[in-house]
């Protein structure tokens, strides 16, 4: 063990390049202003933990103009001036492979605001060579830098000692050993960061092969705007890549670039690989004597766990058991909370209703506003539960293993293992699933996952299936009751979504998201215990972003649909019914439910239902089913309350209520008097619900996650059209078979 690698948390003084004698850095603003510090590092090296330790969990997430990635920033605790840390996405290199990684390159090179005044580079002590690769690129962008040497404890436990003092000396930069999950070890970073703002940018330059250095200089000399050699190297190393586009945007000369590339070809140098080799050769020299490996013989703990958890029998069984437990928690665990929210909002509606006079205002508050708020909040238990599970599995390292195991199964869809968890959780609810797709690095794959997630039958479709199957599917059973027709129909409804999602994923892969697969290069981090604060933070961020950003739109749509179903209420309808009441001898309750039905019939929604009746008649639906479908646009389960209202049952209906079942069985066509809900109609309605995008929450979240209104619109139109056609086909096939 090296004597100076004692894990002290004091800052290790900077080498010559970091002393102020080089003059103040022009990029650093005056000390009274706020200065941004860019936090840069590989994925899975504790970047978020370091950010949290520095800022005390104070973060605000901002969507930067022109970039479709959210960046978090937060003020540094205990700094003598205003310092802000900017949490950049994790990346392995400044040659970006995804939009997230491109942001790192753009922010560091000053192409995207905010221009940082200094860089805080976090490196993982357990794996320094690969971490120093990104560092070597980052040090060349011309900003003062400080290095946080993280996971010194984990490295020591594995038998890896790092001489931080020697590393600081070789790099000519301050190196502060930290354990990011222990905030007290992070505090010494703050004064080092403050003095770094006054330091000169590091003079570190990785020596390149002559031909590559010449080509870089040629590019720098030709550029109309000042071009750093480091940036010129990025342009050369990544043909047709992100940096090349930036180069042309800034007026770079195509001929000079082509000549430089030709000169490299003549010299037999492939710039990308040549850069990688040069950097790793430099890294080997820097780390010689800095990293001392005393690895104990035998397998690591992580490897022993992997033997079991990725085993072809035990591992698959463990994955299946875990998924079952997760689903059980999401369904059963969240259900009481959802019921409580539902009950609470309903109770509140009644109490507020008592305070208000009967009429439009009471109905607006009770059904429009509180119904909308309840609709938003009802999703929260599932979102929080799912994100708690995802955070635990991700933090402990299992998520990467799950993706590793199922990658082969996802491949025929043009997807990878990373899409598995979001798609699976979509069977509970598409909203958290679409939010969970953020973890997928590849943009094309993320978008395909987001767009096919709503095809998985979520828990909101379940009440619709339950009601219609219970009311209309005959109770056939075979093999002594082990095979039941109603269960088969239910299974079929879940399969319908999957069966249509597969060709749609393939179609998207061939059209809108065509292009080479970025493959499945996934780091498998060592197992560790999940941290409660990490889990709670993920739950909080997911819940908050849903309530604030999606909730407001959902509430607005709910109020609009309420208004369409409420207005206009003419006195004539009431008068006409009052006359009938005398003749039919209704009591007050049945009068009220008759009245609710009459109002709905003449509302704008009801009229709309009759307008679209010609379009839905081929499906075997009448206008009442039509408005059920229309009014369920905010959320699918609303169709049950609407069917309850139109079958003149009044409200307060749920899927299990036998009276609604028998009312549905009794509904007839208004002109012919034939039963409305036949088996083909029920099947086509269920298939429609299985495939349509009748969920404003999902659409809003798609819009939020894709940063575009085009995709939710495309989803809505595409899925509704598909649902209509398949529902028509089901209805026609059902009739042809004489069901």
């Amino acid at each position, binding site marked *: 063990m090296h004597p100076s690698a004692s894990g002290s948390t004091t800052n290790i003084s900077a080498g010559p390049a970091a002393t102020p004698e080089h003059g103040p850095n022009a990029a650093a603003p005056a000390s009274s202003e706020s200065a941004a510090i860019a936090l840069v590092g590989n994925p899975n090296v504790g970047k978020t933990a370091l950010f949290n330790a520095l800022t005390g969990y104070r973060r605000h997430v901002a969507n930067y103009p022109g970039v479709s990635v959210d960046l978090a920033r937060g003020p540094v605790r205990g700094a003598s001036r205003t310092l802000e840390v900017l949490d950049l996405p994790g990346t392995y290199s400044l040659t970006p492979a995804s939009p997230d990684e491109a942001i790192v390159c753009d922010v560091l090179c000053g192409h995207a605001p905010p221009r940082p005044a200094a860089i805080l580079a976090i490196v993982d002590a357990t794996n320094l060579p690969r971490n120093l690769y990104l560092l070597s690129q980052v040090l060349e962008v011309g900003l003062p830098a400080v290095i946080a040497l993280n996971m010194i404890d984990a490295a020591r436990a594995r038998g890896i000692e790092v001489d931080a003092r020697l590393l600081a000396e070789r790099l000519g930069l301050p190196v502060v050993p930290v354990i990011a999950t222990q905030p007290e070890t992070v505090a010494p970073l703050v004064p080092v960061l403050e003095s770094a703002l006054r330091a000169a940018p590091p003079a570190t330059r990785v020596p390149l092969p002559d031909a590559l250095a010449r080509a870089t200089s040629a590019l720098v000399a030709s550029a109309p705007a000042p071009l750093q050699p480091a940036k010129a190297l990025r342009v050369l190393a990544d043909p047709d890549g992100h940096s090349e586009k930036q180069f042309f945007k800034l007026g770079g000369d195509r001929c000079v670039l082509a000549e430089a590339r030709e000169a490299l070809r003549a010299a037999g140098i492939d710039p990308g*690989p040549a850069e990688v080799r040069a950097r790793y050769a430099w890294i080997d020299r820097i780390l010689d004597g800095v990293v001392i490996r005393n690895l104990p013989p035998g397998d690591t703990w992580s490897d022993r766990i992997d033997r079991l958890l990725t085993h072809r029998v035990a591992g698959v069984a463990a994955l299946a058991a875990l998924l079952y437990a997760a689903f059980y928690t999401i369904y059963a665990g969240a259900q009481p909370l959802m019921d409580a929210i539902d009950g609470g909002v309903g109770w509140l509606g009644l109490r507020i209703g008592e305070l208000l006079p009967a009429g439009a205002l009471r109905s607006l508050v009770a059904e429009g506003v509180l119904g909308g708020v309840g609709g938003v909040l009802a999703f929260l238990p599932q979102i929080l539960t799912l994100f708690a599970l995802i955070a635990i599995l991700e933090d402990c390292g299992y998520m990467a293993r799950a993706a590793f195991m199922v990658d082969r199964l996802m491949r025929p869809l043009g997807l990878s293992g990373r899409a598995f968890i979001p798609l699976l959780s979509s069977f509970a609810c598409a909203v958290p699933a679409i939010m969970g797709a953020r973890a997928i690095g590849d943009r094309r794959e993320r978008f395909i996952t987001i767009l096919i997630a709503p095809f998985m039958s979520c828990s909101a479709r379940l009440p619709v299936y339950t009601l219609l199957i219970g009311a209309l599917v005959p109770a056939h059973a075979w093999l002594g009751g082990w095979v039941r027709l109603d269960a088969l129909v239910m299974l079929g409804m879940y399969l319908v979504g999957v069966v249509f999602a597969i060709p749609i994923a393939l179609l998207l892969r061939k059209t809108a998201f065509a292009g080479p697969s970025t493959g499945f290069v996934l780091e498998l981090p060592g197992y560790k215990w999940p941290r409660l604060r990490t889990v709670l933070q993920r739950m909080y961020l997911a819940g908050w972003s849903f309530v604030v950003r999606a909730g407001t739109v959902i509430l607005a749509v709910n109020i609009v649909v309420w208004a369409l179903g409420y207005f206009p209420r003419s006195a004539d309808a009431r008068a006409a019914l009052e006359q009938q009441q005398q003749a039919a001898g209704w009591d007050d309750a049945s009068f009220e439910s008759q009245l609710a039905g009459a109002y709905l019939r003449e509302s704008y929604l009801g009229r709309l239902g009759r307008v679209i009746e010609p379009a839905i008649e081929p499906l075997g639906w009448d206008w009442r089913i039509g408005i059920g479908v229309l009014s369920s646009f905010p959320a699918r389960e609303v169709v049950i309350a609407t069917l309850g209202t139109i079958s003149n049952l009044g409200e307060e209906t749920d899927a299990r209520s036998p009276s609604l079942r028998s009312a549905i069985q009794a509904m007839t066509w208004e002109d012919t008097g034939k039963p409305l809900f036949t088996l083909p109609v029920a099947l086509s309605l269920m298939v429609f619900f299985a495939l349509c995008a009748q969920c404003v929450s999902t659409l809003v979240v798609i819009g939020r996650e894709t940063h575009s209104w085009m995709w939710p619109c495309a989803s809505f139109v595409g899925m509704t059209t598909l649902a209509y056609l398949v529902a028509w086909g089901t209805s026609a096939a059902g009739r042809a078979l004489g069901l």
Partner: protein
Amino acid sequence: MPLDTAPVRKMLRITGVSASDPLTYRLMEMGLIEGRQVQVLRRAPWGDPMHLRVGDYELSLRATEAALIDVAAE
């Protein structure tokens, strides 16, 4: 031999990385370059992808990607 056909648990050394496209560039950046050690720890339950140890860390690669890397037994 190409890495995708390499035996499990043997210590291997990378002798060459073929092809030049963004993917191989990224693999090289992640430390899969000539002269470095690599070990195939296991294959996923359906035979693919592969679980590798590259230097001090672990990585999953599909066989098609591993085929771009030539290795020799140590």
